[in-house]
């Protein structure tokens, strides 16, 4: 649904986005992670035809971002939530959405229906005639999301949708994104909230001007260290250690206090065998855990490496 090839954007001598190549499947929630100034917003602006590219290619569906006619079609098929909500404070929530519905060429009946459905879903229907200026930040953000969805877009670009929101409002917005995910919409999510990216995204790209990594949150977490299994025993005997060392699946074994720390390629397959061998050798297992790196560990490592280059 979204394809870029060596997409690059320079502002004078500054390269904001450098040779970004990525592919986002239809119905996928794709997270775009990176520090401030990494080029996330610039990438989204290029993909929404708001600013031009310096070089490379990009397509949304069948349309390229180079062509003015295609750009109008792209703008019609994508919904965009910018970092700043950008609503008209003096107008009502309904009027704000109605205005955008008209610009997106949604027929009047459908527009009314969509506004009612979205505002009801977000719990704002009762306050639809209130001026947007009277709403809290969280509510304004909800209205801005409704605006991005007013024309039932196939692709949704969300730029920091929960930034500056209190935890409750952020949760509401995240839950709403999960609802959209169920509707199989393609969502391109710019964020530096790692927890949010992990919970919402099918795949994550880490960007620092260049694309550093693209993978599912799980695979990214596994990429930093090999997966380790930790077996907590009441006592680690030499018999237990010898029995475990004999297993082919165990690549590396070390002990620490009453713990066995094992490197295993496929823990889901081999852990039951490890447990059986330990029990047979007289070991008394208290519990088995997995030691894995978090997305934050991976993110920080990759960003630091990119900064050092």
């Amino acid at each position: 649904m979204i394809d870029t090839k060596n997409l690059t954007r320079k502002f004078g001598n500054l390269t904001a986005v450098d040779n970004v190549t990525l592919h986002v499947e239809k119905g996928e929630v794709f997270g775009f992670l990176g520090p401030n100034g990494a080029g996330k917003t610039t990438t989204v602006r290029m993909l929404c035809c708001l600013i031009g590219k310096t070089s490379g290619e990009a397509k949304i569906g069948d349309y390229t971002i180079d062509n003015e006619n295609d750009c109008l079609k792209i703008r019609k098929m994508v919904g965009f939530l910018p970092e700043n909500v950008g609503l008209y404070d003096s107008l009502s929530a309904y009027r704000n959405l109605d205005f955008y519905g008209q610009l997106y060429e949604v027929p009047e009946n459908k527009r009314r229906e969509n506004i009612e459905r979205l505002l009801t879903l977000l719990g704002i229907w009762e306050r639809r005639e209130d001026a947007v200026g009277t709403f809290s930040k969280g509510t304004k953000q909800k209205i801005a999301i409704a605006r991005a969805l007013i024309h039932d877009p196939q692709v949704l670009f969300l730029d920091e949708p929960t930034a500056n929101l209190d935890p409750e409002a952020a949760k509401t917005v995240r839950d709403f994104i999960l609802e959209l995910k169920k509707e199989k919409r393609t969502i391109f999510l710019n964020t530096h909230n790692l927890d949010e990216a992990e919970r919402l995204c099918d795949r994550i790209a880490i960007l620092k001007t260049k694309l550093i990594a693209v993978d599912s949150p799980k695979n990214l977490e596994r990429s930093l260290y090999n997966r380790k299994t930790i077996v907590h025993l009441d006592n680690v005997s030499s018999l237990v250690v010898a029995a475990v060392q004999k297993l082919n699946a165990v690549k590396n074994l070390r002990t620490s206090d009453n713990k066995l720390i094992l490197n295993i390629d496929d823990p889901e397959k081999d852990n039951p065998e490890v447990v059986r061998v330990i029990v047979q050798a007289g070991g008394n297992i208290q519990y088995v855990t997995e030691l894995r790196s978090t997305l934050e560990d991976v993110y920080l490592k990759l960003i630091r490496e990119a900064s050092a280059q």
Partner: protein
Amino acid sequence: MRLWKSWIVTKKDLSVFRKNKYVLYSLIAMPIILGVVLPVIFIFALNAQISSVQLTHDQLFAAVNQIVGLATMYFVLIPAILPSIIASYSFVGEKIEKSLEPLLATPTTDGELLLGKSLAAFIPCMAVTYIGAAISAIIIDFWSYTTPQIGTFLIPNPYWLLVIGVIAPLACIMSVEANIIVSSKVNDIRAAQQLGGLIVLPLVFVVIFASTSAQISTLLAIGVSAALAVADIALFYLSKATFQREEILTKWK
């Protein structure tokens, strides 16, 4: 260009302006002061002269023509000046509300957006101009008709019709376009209004020249009006050419 798209933008801007007291008061104040209060003062002054000094018929009509000329001139100055207040809000206002990015993300072309914004500034400026001109005409006509030495309606006359009907809207369009160019280039309303004010100054001279030409010769006035119309079209295309979505988005402060 899809005019209905521009009209959507116009209607939205008009709704926003209606809720902005500063814009509303500015729109109402200038026509009242220039178009109503000043002619009334002149009429009172002339009445005092008529009752205290014996004016000849020629002197009286020269004074009356001056009042009509001034009243007409004011209503060509008003649509030239007012857009500096209202049009400066068009893009800077969007920048302040940070609403320009989602607006530019809609399937609307630059021309449609600019035309919508221009109409949103043009319509209220011309509306208050015509309302003010009508009130001013009623006041002057009432006075002239009830003054025994005159005893006739002075307005509308061909000069008044040409200036109010043709030169005033052309001046308004010119001012709107110039102010929209300024508004899309700067980041705060005060800067937009100050620069807009500077742009209006030469425009005022153009407008005074155009109005004066109407007093001299109808043919000259038609020529000047045609020149104004050409300048308006050129300014619209200039505003379209200078309207850079990218510059507006990336140079926000």
